[in-house]
């Protein structure tokens, strides 16, 4: 087990949070996100203000009751809400925590996992969500799998939620349903409350209302020319990580109303000829919205995404046949496994079909495929996704990056060249 550096001895009084490196990083991203673009939707102010308060001023989001951290979207949040606990998604996008994580993790490992562990290693981590009573760690990709031991070494209690390696066979499905039931049992012991059809149904109602709101937003993004920029939608879905679910849903519903008004008024958030981009690959998590921001600063517009920090987390909804616990919990388990297009499964037929469907329905011009350095599963799928999209006539740009800002100029060249080639193709192929 790696010996972990002790708490950094604060020789001099630590600077007020707002001047720490992490705050500056968030501040920088937020200013770019807000100021580089004219007329952002009014209802986005709630989200900008939320991120400023939480990430830049380090405001505490302490919530009473049991806090259950989750390191991946496979952990069913409905079960956590049903038992009165609050889910806290621990995926982290800050370069600051990535550096801290890199001190005790292999250099070539995925920046997201490094950042998450950096976050967990820091006692007063930002976003300030309070002491976690349990971390549910779905065993999806290898690095998250191995990070569970590291998290335990950091003093957290970790429950490994076993995710099957393939999702087509029946025993994989049963295996997953059993894992979810074990999780329910573990949460019951943790919170000391009993799962009943009533409280699970109420929890599922909250989540499905949030999902319904997201789906309306998703539908609005089909408009050509676009009504809302991709960076705003990524910010909205990133807010879902830590914001209170009901407040988040209300804010998204307000945003939807404003977008409907924009559609009626024929408002354009991007130029008519702006290349429409489908974003997929490793999830952009605030403050690492570097690539989407770069695309939209260079004149493109991200109209759809297939990443687990946005679409994959909120899109697929649960259908229940009989409102009794065995069927409800199994339906939840199925919803989190069967449609999931996570690259950690054996075959990615679902993901390719999903990308093609998104590309066609959103009339995208090109696909940007982000791969975090060290994220081996997404890199392995890059070729098959590129070929599938190529056959369907959608060019794809694969970009390997990580959380550090210093490869910005090289990325700019690639992104601009890609967008220019898309504009040229559009001129020859009357859209």
């Amino acid at each position, binding site marked *: 087990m790696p010996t972990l550096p002790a708490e950094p001895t604060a020789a001099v009084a630590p600077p007020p949070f707002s001047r720490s490196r992490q705050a500056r990083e968030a501040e920088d991203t937020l200013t770019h996100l807000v100021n580089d673009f004219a007329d952002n939707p009014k209802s986005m102010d709630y989200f900008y203000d939320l991120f400023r308060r939480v990430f830049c001023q380090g405001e505490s989001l302490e919530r009473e009751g049991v806090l259950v951290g989750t390191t991946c979207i496979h952990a069913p949040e409905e079960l956590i809400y049903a038992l009165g606990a609050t889910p806290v998604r621990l995926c982290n996008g800050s370069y600051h925590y990535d550096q801290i994580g890199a001190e005790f993790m292999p250099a070539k490992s995925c920046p997201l996992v490094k950042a998450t562990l950096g976050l967990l290693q820091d006692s007063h981590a930002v976003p300030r969500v309070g002491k976690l009573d349990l971390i549910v760690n779905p065993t999806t990709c290898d690095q998250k799998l191995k990070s569970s031991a590291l998290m335990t070494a950091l003093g957290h209690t970790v429950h490994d939620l076993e995710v099957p390696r393939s999702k087509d066979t029946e025993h994989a499905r049963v295996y997953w349903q059993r894992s979810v039931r074990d999780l329910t049992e573990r949460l019951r012991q943790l919170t000391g409350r009993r799962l009943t059809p009533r409280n699970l149904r109420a929890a599922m109602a909250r989540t499905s209302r949030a999902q319904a709101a997201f789906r309306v937003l998703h539908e609005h993004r089909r408009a050509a020319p676009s009504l809302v920029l991709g960076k705003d939608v990524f910010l909205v879905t990133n807010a879902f990580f830590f914001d209170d679910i009901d407040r988040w849903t209300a804010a998204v519903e307000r945003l939807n109303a404003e977008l409907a008004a924009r559609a009626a008024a024929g408002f354009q958030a991007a130029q008519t000829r702006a290349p429409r981009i489908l974003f997929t690959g490793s999830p952009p998590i605030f403050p690492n919205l570097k690539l989407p921001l770069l695309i939209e600063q260079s004149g493109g517009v991200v109209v759809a995404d297939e990443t687990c920090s946005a679409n994959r987390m909120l899109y697929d909804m649960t259908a229940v046949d009989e409102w009794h616990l065995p069927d409800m919990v199994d339906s939840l388990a199925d919803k989190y496994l069967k449609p999931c297009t996570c690259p950690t499964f054996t075959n990615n037929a679902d993901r390719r079909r999903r990308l093609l469907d998104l590309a066609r329905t959103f009339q995208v011009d090109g696909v940007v495929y982000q791969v975090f350095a060290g994220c081996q599963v997404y890199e392995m799928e890059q070729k098959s996704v590129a070929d599938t999209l190529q056959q369907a006539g959608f*060019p794809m740009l694969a970009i390997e990056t990580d959380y550090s800002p210093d490869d910005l100029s*090289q990325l700019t060249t690639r992104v*601009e*060249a890609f967008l220019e080639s898309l504009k*040229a193709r559009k001129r020859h192929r009357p859209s």
Partner: protein
Amino acid sequence: MSYFAGLDIGSTAIKVALVDQDGRLVGVHVAATGSHFHRNAQEALQTLLARHGIAREQVRYLIATGYGRKLFKEADDSISEITANALGAHEVGKAYGGVRTIINIGGQDSKAILIDPHGNVANFAMNDKCAAGTGRFLDVTARNLGLDLDELGACHLSSQGPPLSINSTCTVFAESEIIGLLAHGHGKPEIVAGIHYSIARRTVRLAKRVGIEDRVFFDGGPALNKGLVAALQDELQHELVVPEFPQTTTAFGAAILARSEFLAEASLSSSAA
């Protein structure tokens, strides 16, 4: 008579190309980037104009490309060097019967571009994270062997034995390996040939990622090096086309685009007026 200029502000060299009203190349000029690239870029443009006796006002439209394109304020517009290179190569390639694959080895990066019949970029791959296989690798080698850059080509051609295999592709370690090979009494020509072949192999691998089709267009500074061209030809097994001014194809592409942009805007304003 109006002219159009393309200014490629590269990492090691600034290239300027001047095109007249009918799109014909008037002249090119190459100057070192140095540290004040802003001033050097203006000087390079000035020297080229002076050489052909053209006033600055006659240059109606100027497009900058390359790493410094965004910072060169006098430019009317900027374009990424990949699109510029593609346009340039497409234009120049017509003389050789049309090209589809472009290999460009620059000062600090190497690019492989696949273009469609109209000259638009269909696919591209870049290696700008490691100096191996770039112009900088050749500079380091030349300095180690005490040769000038333009002597490398002749030296390669004068080698008798098979080219040595330089297995470490990293610029820094290649240096120590060259010193070791010299110490073992291997001839300089064989070492240079070895270096050329290692760059060629690495570039072909990059080109394969975008797909190699039709005639292959090879440009960028190192394309002047005859030895490297021979090595690449051997590795590629495709017909290799090296233009007369390989360094300035990108600048030429930018100039062509400047002209078409200007004419498009002009026709637009005339039809609007």
